[in-house]
């Protein structure tokens, strides 16, 4: 391997992605001082380059995006309607004149169409939020899932699918941070019997004291008396963390 060939491998070397040519490359570096010096000097630069702070876009950018997406969607839905021109301003203006002449019967018909379409659009926006929350909750990275939990706050309270996903997260997510955030988000679902029951049942499935305490606090906050047997069961566990034990005893007192 000559210097020219060796230098095309530098980036792989910095990235740690050298493959079959690794041996030859290292032999060359070992014997060629110039390449060695350059590789090391630029390696530091490459490293620093990867740690440059990222810039954050403004909050407004997100708002504008979702506004525009909603508009796009509405226009699309209108275009899909075979009689979309019925709602075109020019046509409606012409119609108004016609309606005056013909009577109010036609107007009643058009309004009826409109209200069904509006509720259809509402349903679509709703589905979009739900999809985002659910998809994010399924992601590999804990930060994505945290984002999903945060998104769940913006979904209609006690949406059954999002509620189900949040409960699954509380019970099974490997990250304590994500589980804690999900317990918090479940507050939004306290009107739903399923949500309340889910929080109580999650208590037995936790191994993290932090999450156990968060759930106990929430049970007290909700005055969920049906949790008493679950707390008593928790207290019967010999190996229970002392802090959790104390909190559980306190919770029992509050509920009784």
């Amino acid at each position: 391997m000559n210097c020219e060939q060796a230098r095309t491998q530098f980036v792989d070397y910095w990235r740690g992605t050298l493959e079959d040519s690794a041996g030859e490359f290292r032999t060359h570096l070992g014997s060629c001082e110039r390449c060695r010096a350059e590789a090391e000097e630029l390696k530091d630069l490459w490293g620093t380059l990867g740690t440059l702070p990222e810039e954050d876009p403004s909050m407004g950018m997100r708002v504008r995006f979702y506004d525009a997406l909603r508009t796009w969607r509405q226009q699309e839905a209108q275009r899909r309607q075979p009689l979309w021109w019925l709602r075109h301003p020019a046509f409606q203006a012409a119609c108004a004149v016609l309606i005056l002449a013909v009577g109010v019967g036609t107007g009643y018909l058009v309004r009826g169409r409109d209200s069904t379409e509006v509720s259809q659009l509402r349903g679509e926006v709703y589905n979009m939020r739900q999809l985002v929350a659910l998809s994010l909750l399924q992601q590999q990275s804990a930060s994505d899932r945290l984002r999903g939990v945060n998104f769940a706050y913006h979904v209609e309270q006690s949406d059954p699918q999002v509620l189900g996903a949040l409960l699954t997260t509380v019970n099974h997510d490997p990250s304590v941070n994500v589980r804690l955030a999900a317990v918090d988000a479940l507050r939004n679902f306290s009107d739903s019997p399923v949500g309340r029951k889910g929080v109580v049942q999650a208590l037995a499935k936790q191994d993290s004291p932090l999450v156990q305490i968060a759930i106990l606090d929430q049970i007290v906050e909700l005055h969920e008396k049906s949790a008493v047997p679950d707390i008593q069961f928790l207290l019967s566990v010999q190996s229970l963390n002392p802090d959790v034990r104390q909190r559980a005893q306190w919770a029992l007192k509050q509920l009784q």
Partner: protein
Amino acid sequence: MGQGRALPGEWQGMALLHSVTFGYAAGIPIVYEASDSSLMQAVRDGDLGGLAVLFERHHRPLFNYFVHVNGNRELSEDLVQDVFFRMLKYRKSYQPERSFTAWMYQIARNAHVDSIGKRKFEVEIGDREFASTNMMDENLKRKQEVALLKRAMARLPLEKRELLVLSRYQNLKYEEIAGILGCDIGAVKVRVYRAVRALGQIYFELAGEKAS
């Protein structure tokens, strides 16, 4: 759907839906197979919700790409929006067997080129300081290093700067970069190396100026 913004009209619709689904048993999660490519396929087939997920994932790196390319935050925000709506517009042309990221950056490059045409002048990135809040507690030496590196980056020709942003910040694979630039992987490796070397030359020159 901006955070914390109430959209009363939509809440009504949701309440309606809620009443329809009351009595659902919890604990049955819906597993979405949501790779970028499958989301984009869903968008292509008419499900726009997928685009929202893609936006959540990619808007920040994309924004940083544009800021490095044009040095203008406001313009960069517009361009990010532009990219996502071009995806919608051209969604039928998306081919799932190709990398989504590569496709996205291809659109981004076009959006950048068009923005120059529209403004009728070349956007020149200056030696300005990039806003950064998390440098407070870093030691002085590192602070200077970072500042110097940003200045060096700003002086690099656009195609080299872009290459470093894609390969280093965005950590794209060689084949993805090759797809975006329309060249082969070998050429990408050589060009990235040359870009780093050119950056090094400017960087060490600036460091020398400072020292002397």
